[in-house]
């Protein structure tokens, strides 16, 4: 008998004979979490993620590359990793190089350029698929065009978020988007820059991942970005 069979046999021998009722997660969220307007969700998201040390800027479809240029210049960053083939990546590729920002792309598998990503990529731009107001959380589903390490390795991570994609809660996000029918290779919730309090409970940012997280919020309703 294999370890698998022995473990399962032991568990089966002593498993309770009756099943418990399925826990009612939906009712708990319906009675304990507000359902807010788009403006209020945007406000809440903005407030909570700022508490976690992220920076948020309200932008619109015409101005966001300008704001991106501004935040990079303010940090003296002249190179940005973008996802070619995505609408936002292509927009950055069009707009930024003429303004003095060199845009690199994730065109090869990581093995071919790992040291460049780690040592010579000061910033990246990705989109967020959606966000969560309650916890000030960005939802990213990395894919072939916008790989996983883009949101992890560069010290400055800029995220473009459409304010109309903000959910009230994590529960609402996964049910509204039907996640239980299939998840990608890697789905991520990101709620601020990398941090640690492992040395004497003193908070320090930039532990292993990005030191700065900057959110460009597209179409934020009036007043949501204050």
């Amino acid at each position, binding site marked *: 008998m294999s370890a698998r069979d022995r473990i399962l046999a032991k*568990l089966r021998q002593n498993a309770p004979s009756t099943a418990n009722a399925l826990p009612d997660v939906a009712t708990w969220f319906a009675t304990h979490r507000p359902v807010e307007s788009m403006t209020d969700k945007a406000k809440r998201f903005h407030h909570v993620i700022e508490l976690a040390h992220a920076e948020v800027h309200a932008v619109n479809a015409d101005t966001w590359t300008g704001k991106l240029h501004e935040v990079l210049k303010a940090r003296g960053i002249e190179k940005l990793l973008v996802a070619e083939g995505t609408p936002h990546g292509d927009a950055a590729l069009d707009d930024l190089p003429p303004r003095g920002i060199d845009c690199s792309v994730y065109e090869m598998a990581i093995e071919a350029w790992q040291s460049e990503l780690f040592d010579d990529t000061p910033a990246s731009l990705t989109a967020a698929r959606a966000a969560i107001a309650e916890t000030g959380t960005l939802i990213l589903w990395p894919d072939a065009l916008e790989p996983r*390490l883009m949101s992890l390795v560069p010290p400055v991570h800029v995220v473009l978020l459409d304010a109309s994609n903000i959910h009230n809660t994590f529960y609402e996000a996964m049910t509204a988007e039907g996640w239980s029918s299939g998840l990608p290779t890697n789905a991520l919730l990101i709620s601020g820059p990398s941090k640690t309090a492992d040395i004497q*409970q003193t908070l320090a940012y930039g532990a292993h991942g990005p030191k700065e997280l900057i959110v460009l919020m597209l179409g934020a309703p009036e007043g949501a970005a204050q």
Partner: protein
Amino acid sequence: MSEHTLHFKPTEGFRTRSKAVVDNPVLRQSFRGAMDFLMSKRAAQFPDDEELQSLRSLGEAIRQYNLAKLPDLLLQLESQLTANGIQVHWAETPDEANTIILGICQRHSAKLMVKGKSMVSEEIELNHAAEAAGIGALESDMGEYIVQLAGEKPSHIIMPAIHKTKEEIARLFADKVDGVDYTDNVDALIQIGRNVLREKFQEAAIGLSGVNFAVAETGTLCLVENEGNGRMCTTVPPIHIAITGIEKIVEKLEHVPPLLSLLTRSATGQNISTYFNMISSPRKPGEKDGPEEVHLVLLDNGRSQAYADEQLRKTLQCIRCGACMNHCPVYTRIGGHAYGTTYPGPIGKIVSPHMLGLEATASMATASSLCGACGEVCPVKIPIPELLMRLREEAFSEPHAKPAMRGQGAGYSPLISAIWRAWATVYRSPALYRLVSWLGSRFGGLLPSRQGAWTSVRVPLRPAPKRLRDMLKERG
């Protein structure tokens, strides 16, 4: 990393280790300060008691629902993960788990494994097994990195280096990390760790991680962290091996949000961790990063013993938040190392006997005042004080033929049991009680002035010269 092999010691030596901490003002201050900090952070996350209590009830219901279906869910998880391309392994014992993990390393001729924070990997003492097999195992969580550099073990399941001051860490880095001068600036220390470990993430062939929740319906491994080292370990090296206890499974993805909220708010007082990393497959064709192979090792190591008993099964509800130790007056005074087990504090006392047997852990459950704080803060309502009582019973009752636990009766002493039986007889009979209390009031002075552990820090116990009943009689 360490020059000598350290092993988690069972309760032998518990008193000596506890006394050493109680006598050390620096360590006591470290633990007191850290526990006060964590308790106030947690309290700030739960301003509304109704919300907290209803969420705890939901968390408890979710954990119990899933435990009731555990064998079926393990099979569902296995088939879903396999369909997703993740390889599933089963281990009954720590040795089997190490053999599986090191076997994968050897197949890939791996020299270095970088590790995200995993208490189960501590439970199986993977680092020592890897070292013995000539494979480097490097901790990458900042706290774990610090304790590994120091040749120590984590003293807390969430904050491994909680016993160390920043000055101690500064000296450690200056001594052990090449080219580093002494600095006790926390930002600078973290940058030192970041730079060292970023090299190692790129060099390692294997990334090892734990699992916070394994979702059966989607075949997803969920990881909670703040630093990003967990994401590094599960994304940069070509092979990712995850290890988890068999109990950390939920059937439905929708079970995750309530448990995640309870976990991060109870553990560190955060409304959510910086990263919540959900992994459902290795790198797919066309994807440009992520490991080519993902493995999951499912470890029993005594969990099936706890599962077999309706009351003890509640031990497996645990989501490893550490709130019980943060609120424990014993843990706060003696710290994590005194327990000598992988898991310290109240959760350690109820889970370790299943892993190590009561022979090695008989007295653990007695290191409690039964104040009940652990049970009150537990986010999934594990009745920890009740379980401590049960474990005392299991450890100290006369060995019998059908024990619920390995090592039942290991602490049994015929003399002590006889004394308690006599005590019970006296207290059940009014006449005997009168006689014995009269003898006590007359001859109590004959009791020795040294009464074992009691008089090491207290005045001797002496019956009063007059009984209450005598005093009442005098007053008429």
